[in-house]
């Protein structure tokens, strides 16, 4: 009843090409935005904001980046952690070495540096494909970890592995509280999601999808594979880089190369698979799932923890996490986004069965 598009006519080309053509979608999106801007400080405690919401938003952004590369362009990548790491370290170095640079510009620049790195990593993708490319992106992961772990230039000559981030100041206002950080991250995520949503339904997004579906055929109909693949790598690693910088500056308040290891790359990959490949909404659903799941397992485990040793709990956590992933893939291989689609279809007809 509520979700029905009857009576909403598309009377112009503009209306036909609107980003959210259905009125209910627009309204619920605006409602979500209003809640996340005005509602969150009223409902959520600082602990919830800093501990759950900020990482959720940052992981969503990283997932959007990987989804552009893997979900939309079909290039399997196991090196997303490397892009995040490059972004985080670029942001740290820019902020420390050029203190007069505005912090927003620092984040964007570090995204651009990550994008350049992404193009370098992606350059073999014309020749190497599929799982071979996936293993090749692993090379980037290990190489970047090694670079930041070995050369002290990147850490400002400091021997300590964990670097505290400098304070962030925007127009004279110092970002300090959990809520400030949340708003900064939210602003980035909203703007970049909007850009991503528009990118994937524009000319370049369609080229990406053509390459994903079959790159030889796409080449035949006049899509430049080099340009298309590399642009996907660039955009994807830009998102990863900004997410990495935000992760360092707004979430953990420090930059540390061990925070972006291979398992981070796998985690982001899980997010987009569970959320849904080739879906922007799916990135958010997947990120929420992966961020919330360990918390749920932890609280569930702590209820029994009186008589269970701690290392067994952590092993059981691994087992439940792995088991749930397999379970999800069996039940809904197309991800939560597909589940949402079927729900929408049902809602359209409700209360009638057909």
């Amino acid at each position: 009843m509520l979700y029905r598009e009857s009576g909403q006519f598309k009377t112009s080309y503009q209306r036909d090409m609107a980003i959210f053509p259905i009125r209910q979608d627009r309204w619920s999106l605006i409602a979500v935005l209003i809640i996340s801007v005005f509602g969150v400080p009223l409902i959520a405690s600082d602990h919830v904001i800093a501990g759950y919401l900020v990482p959720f938003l940052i992981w969503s952004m990283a997932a959007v980046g990987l989804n552009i590369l893997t979900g939309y362009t079909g290039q399997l990548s196991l090196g997303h952690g490397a892009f995040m790491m490059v972004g985080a370290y670029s942001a740290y170095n820019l902020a420390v070495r050029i203190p007069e640079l505005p912090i927003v510009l620092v984040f964007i620049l570090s995204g651009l540096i990550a994008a350049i790195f992404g193009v370098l990593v992606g350059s073999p993708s014309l020749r190497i494909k599929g799982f071979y490319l996936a293993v090749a992106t692993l090379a980037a992961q290990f190489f970047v970890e090694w670079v930041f772990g070995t050369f002290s230039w990147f850490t400002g000559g400091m021997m300590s592995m964990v670097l505290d981030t400098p304070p962030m100041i925007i127009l004279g206002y110092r970002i300090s509280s959990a809520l400030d950080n949340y708003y900064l991250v939210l602003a980035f995520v909203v703007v970049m999601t909007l850009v991503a949503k528009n990118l994937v339904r524009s000319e370049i997004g369609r080229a990406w999808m053509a390459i994903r579906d079959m790159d030889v055929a796409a080449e035949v109909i006049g899509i430049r594979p080099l340009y298309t693949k590399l642009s996907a790598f660039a955009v994807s690693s830009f998102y990863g880089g900004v997410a990495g910088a935000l992760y360092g500056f707004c979430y953990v308040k420090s930059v540390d190369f061990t925070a972006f290891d291979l398992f981070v790359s796998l985690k982001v990959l899980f997010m987009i698979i569970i959320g849904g490949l080739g879906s922007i909404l799916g990135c958010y659903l997947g990120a929420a799932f992966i961020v919330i799941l360990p918390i749920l397992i932890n609280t569930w485990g702590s209820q029994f923890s009186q008589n269970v040793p701690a290392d067994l709990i952590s092993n059981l956590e691994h087992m439940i996490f792995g088991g749930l992933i397999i379970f999800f893939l069996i039940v809904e291989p197309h991800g939560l986004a597909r589940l949402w689609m079927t729900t929408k279809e049902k809602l359209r007809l409700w209360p009638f069965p057909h």
Partner: protein
Amino acid sequence: MTGFTFVIEVLIAGLLSGVMYSLVALGFVLIFKASGVFNFAQGAMVLFAALTFVRILEMGVNFWLAIAIALAVMIVMAIIIERVMLRPLVAQPVIILFMATIGLNYFLEGLAQAIWDAEVHGLEIGIPDVPWMAVLESTNILISLFDVWSAVICGVLVLVLAYFFQKGRIGRALRAVADDNQAAMSVGIPLQQIWAIVWAVAGMVALVAGAIWGQRLGVQFSISLVALKALPVLILGGFNSIAGAILGGLIIGASEKLAEVYLGPIIGGGIESWAAYFIAMLFLMVRPQGLFGEEIIERV
């Protein structure tokens, strides 16, 4: 010691350590050949097999009986994996199967350490880790006898696997499945049974790899990370070639050791984490399907 014998020594040590990488890579190849699945959980399988083996040994069980029990455990595990995970995922895109094996990786790592424990266990499989005296005396080159033995074991394993894949009913069925899943099914080859067999064989290979790596490093969690060292071997040799896994291992092992000795001091050491990947990528630029991989033919 002259420079030349040093080079030879590094080269031989590299080649022999490469054989140990190929042991792990073999497990990947077997499963990829038969089902087109890139089995990320191979490292966890090595850990699981080695932990099972070492814990049964520690209970005071006879060496050969312990091997038999560990083998049985791996076979049961393969059947369970096929029943629970692979069967419902038939005909899904390969990336979904790949992700499922990553989930399996987490699950097995947790399971192995929950059933047994996360301690470091010393493992003694009866091969002494001493220099080969005969060679040392005659040519002054230091070769570990343990490395030589593991190379021999690996060679035997490859021969057995090659025979297993070529001859007999199961061998023919395996090759048919490797060639085309659907066509094999349509002529009446029980796909599910074949998959269970392949996973069981991969489990056996994991047990051998786990036992040998276990004596080298001690049986512990980090043994599962050996799989990451085997990945460059895998892409260099090609995902679906047993011979490729061996040759890839030799090339990676030798060049990695040489790079570490001669390049490492110049650019700051610790390069073994990525050097192998770079070497593999150089080869891939020339042959995108690996040295012995099936040529990728693309049709529109």
